[in-house]
């Protein structure tokens, strides 16, 4: 079975020549991932996709046209990035627009991954939900305060949609390998190999050298092995590049947990088939006693305002920690706020990148950059805190001060920016269910004349 992965995320783009080289090899499936929690909680919480609609339409047009011409399935996971219903809806609209413009017809399945709060509270009370790793305990309050909660679907809902005759499947939040593996497992291919292949293909050519998250790769799935080979002649896969990719973004390279169980790579082999094609074998899949899916939720923490400024005074820089600590106290005194807020300072040139993990305590920077960061219950309140902190810092009198006209260099006027709502992750854990298909609502629609 041949599986074409066009790009790491729908909307990240890919060279058309690579894609057409893949299409010429007559794939049996085009599949693509579209999501991640990496860009942070904002996108899930706010319902705004982290990919650009114009870029998504370009990528999806090429994939949809090819899938219709070859009469093969197209499966896209984690639509719109975070994969809640609002993200999924944008991608469904883009897909329908393309189908209309290109006069394409097919049966569409849309699989939701968003969860109703009441249903999750019932699962929580029934003991079906547990937190994951260092994440906080999941409480009823955490569920009820979330703006969106999704679960990563596994292969089962996708297989069901294919059984129901769908050719194009748009999924909400989805285990990244599932769109690649589900159609293969449905045809009887080994689950462990199909999922492991999906795990590599979902990042497109990141497993190649030179690596890229925006170029096409073909996966070849056999009875007891799979191969991967990039479609751009300028890239190649080597046993080292492919096995190194197994490490990427994972806690443990041997044990890769997912819905329903984990991949076990302890006896996995990576060998060179050619100088640019790698063969993988020996992967195992260990089933869980009760299947689980991963839950992700986000809630609004408040509203953010920031001010960006710099300082070039050696006397100020030598005291910056003490000044900023005291600034928090002075801001509170100058504001008398009757609302809750958080005030933080990011100091570039000191520990602006690593914060509390920064091992260097001595700095030699001749200048520093400061971001005043405030989150409060309303936009107006955070703007007020940011404004008072900024003006207090501008004229702050510190010991030995000789530059008495102002402590800050502002690159912009206005100096303060109202950023809008700020979100945090609120739910991160597992939901156990004997029937993973029933957790994810599917809707079908015939598009075009079919």
């Amino acid at each position: 079975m041949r599986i074409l992965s066009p790009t790491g995320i729908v909307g990240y783009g890919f060279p058309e020549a690579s894609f057409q080289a893949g299409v010429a090899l007559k794939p049996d499936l085009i599949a693509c991932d579209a999501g991640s929690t990496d860009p942070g909680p904002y996108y899930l919480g706010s319902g705004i996709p982290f990919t650009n609609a114009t870029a998504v339409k370009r990528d999806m047009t090429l994939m949809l046209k090819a899938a219709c011409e070859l009469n093969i399935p197209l499966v896209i996971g984690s639509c719109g990035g975070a994969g809640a219903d609002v993200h999924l809806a944008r991608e469904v609209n883009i897909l329908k627009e393309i189908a209309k413009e290109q006069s394409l017809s097919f049966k569409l399945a849309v699989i939701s991954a968003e969860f109703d709060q009441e249903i999750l509270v019932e699962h929580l009370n029934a003991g079906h939900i547990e937190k994951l790793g260092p994440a906080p305990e999941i409480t009823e309050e955490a569920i009820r305060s979330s703006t969106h909660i999704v679960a990563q679907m596994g292969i089962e809902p996708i297989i069901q949609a294919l059984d129901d005759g769908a050719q194009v499947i748009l999924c909400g939040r989805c285990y990244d390998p599932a769109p690649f593996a589900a159609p293969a497992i449905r045809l009887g291919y080994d689950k462990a190999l199909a999922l492991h292949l999906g795990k590599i293909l979902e990042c497109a050519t990141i497993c190649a050298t030179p690596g890229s998250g925006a170029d096409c790769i073909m996966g070849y799935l056999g009875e007891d092995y799979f191969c991967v080979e990039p479609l751009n002649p300028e890239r190649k896969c080597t046993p080292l590049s492919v096995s190194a990719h197994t490490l990427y973004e994972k806690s443990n390279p041997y044990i890769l947990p997912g819905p329903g169980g984990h991949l076990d790579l302890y006896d996995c082999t990576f060998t060179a088939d050619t100088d640019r094609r790698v063969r993988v074998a020996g992967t195992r899949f260990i089933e869980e006693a009760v299947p689980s899916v991963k839950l992700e939720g986000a809630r609004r923490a408040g509203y953010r305002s920031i001010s960006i400024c710099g300082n070039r005074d050696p006397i100020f820089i030598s005291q910056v920690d003490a000044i900023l600590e005291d600034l928090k106290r002075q801001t509170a005194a100058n504001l008398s706020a009757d609302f809750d807020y958080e005030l933080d300072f990011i100091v570039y040139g000191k520990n602006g990148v690593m914060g509390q993990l920064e091992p260097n305590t001595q700095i030699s920077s001749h200048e520093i950059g400061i971001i005043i960061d405030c989150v409060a219950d309303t936009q107006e309140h955070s703007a007020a805190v940011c404004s008072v902190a900024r003006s207090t810092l501008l004229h702050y009198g510190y010991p030995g001060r000789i530059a008495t006209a102002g402590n800050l260099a502002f690159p912009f006027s206005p100096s303060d920016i109202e950023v809008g709502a700020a979100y945090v992750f609120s739910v991160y854990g597992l939901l156990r269910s004997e029937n993973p298909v029933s957790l994810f609502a599917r809707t079908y629609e015939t598009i075009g004349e079919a």
Partner: protein
Amino acid sequence: MQLRLKDIASVIRSKNAGPYELTLDVLLQSDEMFEKVRAADVINKGSVAKLYGVPEEEILSIVYFPNARAVKITMVRPIPSGAMGERDVYGAQQHAPLVGFTFELD
């Protein structure tokens, strides 16, 4: 012989492993150096905790992966990704203390 990690590694990188963990990958330049580093156990929970100034319990695992000549370190993220006080949402610039890590190796 005193060695610096950046002189024997081909890749030293950091990235989120989900919103609550940070994972650091070190890929050694040769199989020989990989075996030496593994045998000497210079990259351990204690040495990594010291490099990052965190308690040893925060270092969740250190796993050797010979296929990729890699050592993988996973630690608790100081704060969840994107929470107040965040400095690096993707966790992609937290590798520097390892770059300068120096140790004795026979």
